[in-house]
């Protein structure tokens, strides 16, 4: 369906979510299988020029994204505007045979939403092309704390953890150390079980929450209107249930939290100088590791491999086993970040103009690939992340 406005889109998604929708020329109620609604939380960067019309800029960005060669050949697409500002439908033909629709909402010019009913494989591929290296769009990374606070908005039904530090090899300093661990907990008591596991230090170091499964209802008085949500660490949400409004409310809440943290980090931590007389502003942020990494140069090499999960480009200015220093280009987010790596901590400086999402993404990556207990601290040892509503 090509969305005419947000109201029509919401009604359409509600019907598909529950399997209750009108079909046939007569429009008589019939229905079909319930289809999960997928929503991708994305960041457009750099932020639209404040002097320009933000929505025009987003529209241009969207058209540029759709003109990419591989996307054009495998899934020729075009964007249809709607009567509502900031809402577009991407109508495509995946592998030139399967029709696919993605609903792009950039009412928030920086944090976009893309809703779709397409199969995960199809949708992930298209989103992957839209957010490829060098474009103005990136996926949002959700550190474990943000996932867990999102889960706490509703009732937890499952927790999935994945911790994978195999890319660093085994340094031999800890014979009992774990290189890889993945675990799925299902049911209402999964959080309780997780708390028990986290109490054990040797297990906690490899418990990185990467997905939460939560039942959410925005209105306590009406628990019949709910969604059952899979929230992934890469900003993908998949909803089932009875209420698209519940899903959209959860998405908005999560986006607000991401935005608040990103903007807060940018306002306090970006290192810049201002004014004719020159004053310096900004702070450094430090990732405090729960155990030493052993060799800072080896970690520096892993970070600079340009390959996932870190995807940074740069060359160290100084590199030794005790200390490495470099400026990197974050290929996922598109911003710059200054690193100082020691065996006990990683200090970062966010240059002016760079999105704080690069710091958030680093935090999430370190949690899942190096040290699940890593803490991000700012001045005077305060936590950088603000998790309360």
């Amino acid at each position: 369906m090509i969305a005419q406005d947000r109201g029509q889109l919401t009604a359409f998604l509600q019907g598909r979510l529950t399997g209750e929708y009108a079909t046939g020329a007569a429009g008589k109620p019939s229905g079909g299988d319930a289809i999960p609604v997928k929503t991708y939380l994305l960041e457009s960067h750099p932020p639209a020029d404040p002097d320009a019309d933000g929505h025009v800029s987003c529209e241009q960005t969207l058209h540029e994204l759709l003109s990419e060669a591989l996307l054009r050949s495998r899934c020729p697409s075009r964007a249809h505007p709607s009567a509502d500002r900031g809402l577009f439908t991407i109508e495509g033909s995946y592998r030139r045979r399967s029709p696919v629709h993605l609903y792009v909402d950039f009412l928030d010019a920086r944090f976009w939403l893309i809703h779709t009913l397409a199969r995960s494989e199809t949708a992930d591929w298209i989103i992957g092309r839209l957010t490829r290296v060098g474009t103005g769009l990136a996926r949002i990374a959700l550190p474990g704390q943000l996932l867990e606070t999102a889960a706490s908005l509703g009732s937890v039904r499952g927790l999935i953890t994945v911790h994978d530090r195999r890319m660093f090899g085994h340094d031999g300093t800890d014979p009992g150390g774990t290189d890889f661990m993945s675990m799925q907990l299902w049911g209402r008591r999964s959080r309780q079980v997780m708390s028990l596991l986290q109490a054990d230090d040797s297990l906690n170091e490899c418990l990185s929450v990467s997905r939460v499964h939560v039942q959410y209802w925005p209105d306590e008085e009406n628990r019949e209107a709910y969604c059952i949500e899979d929230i992934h660490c890469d900003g993908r949400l998949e909803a089932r249930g009875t209420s698209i409004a519940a899903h959209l409310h959860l998405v908005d809440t999560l986006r607000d939290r991401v935005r608040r943290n990103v903007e807060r980090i940018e306002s306090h931590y970006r290192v810049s100088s201002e004014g004719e007389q020159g004053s310096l502003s900004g702070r450094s942020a430090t990732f405090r590791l729960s155990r030493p990494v052993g060799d800072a140069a080896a970690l520096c090499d892993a970070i600079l491999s340009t390959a996932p999960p870190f995807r940074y480009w740069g060359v160290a200015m100084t590199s030794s086993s005790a200390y490495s220093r470099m400026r990197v280009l974050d290929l996922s987010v598109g911003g710059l970040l200054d690193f100082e790596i020691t065996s006990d901590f990683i200090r970062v400086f966010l240059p002016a103009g760079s999105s704080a999402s690069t710091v958030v993404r680093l935090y999430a990556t370190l949690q899942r690939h190096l040290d699940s207990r890593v803490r991000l601290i700012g001045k005077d040892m305060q936590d950088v992340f603000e998790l309360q509503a």
Partner: protein
Amino acid sequence: MSSNFRLSVVNLLLGMCRGTPGVSGALRGMGYRDVWINSGLTWDGQDRSHPVFVLASRETRHSLFVEVTGSPEIDPGRLERYTRLTAVELRQGTRLSREQTETYGVAVIGRHDHRETLRACVAESGVRPALILKTADGLVLDANPFVKAALTNIFRPLLPVDWQTVPLSWIPFDHESGSVEIAGVIVPEVVRRLLHGESGIEVDDVCRRQVLWRLTTDTGRRKLRERIREVLADAASGEMRRYFALHGDVIEAAAPEDGNPEAGEGKSPVNPRTLRIASIRFARLMARLRELEQPDRVSDTPVDQLDDPLDGVDPDSSSASTRASSEGS
């Protein structure tokens, strides 16, 4: 630690004033904050290539003018200029407040190796600056205690500093920094902009984006610009020539002529397919600059004997990046 002694100490003091984990918070605890003076004080005949760096505290009602020197001696004129300063001039010509200028003093920070010569310089100076020396373990107040006893106590018997891990990225480089430090910051910035399809990037625009630009003096800016342009020209005519060129004062994406396989087809030579090879070439540039700066450094492989990055390297293979890292280390 950076080879640029002055910048290392300034970065350390910035970290101490700004609560950076891993360095002492004693100065911050006394309310000291960094203040930069790049104009407004008339110091004729003096070298103005560096801004005046001040630690100022409303709580202790005190400002400390910091002179850092990596040389065995300090120009007496640099110290004598403070004798002519008045509190009124400070309040009117700088951002220092009335509280911060109630009392003020000068500190010279130098290397312990230069202790005797620096002591002599300090003894001859009319401003009686405090002398703080960098030792292997930290900073020590060697001569002339501060008027604020609590400040003296921070540096006595020793302010411990782990020099291997001091923050260096507040001000990543200045005009006295080595080319490795400048290229390590500037080249990723240029590559970022080329990757996003920009071309025709003004050198002045690159300069304006540096933190030091607004903090330093007019002379400092001119020297900084010269160094940035010099490093960009070196990169553009050397290892990074397939990605960008410097035409006058403008950085352009490299053109497809001259058999440049990474340009053409209407796309930037810096694109997802070429990033890994670009990383290897950048590592080669850094290795060459490092060798020029440290000719005595023993390298496993001389730069001119490193393989050509295009020979036998699959751009989609992760081995490319591994080579880049090893070359850079």
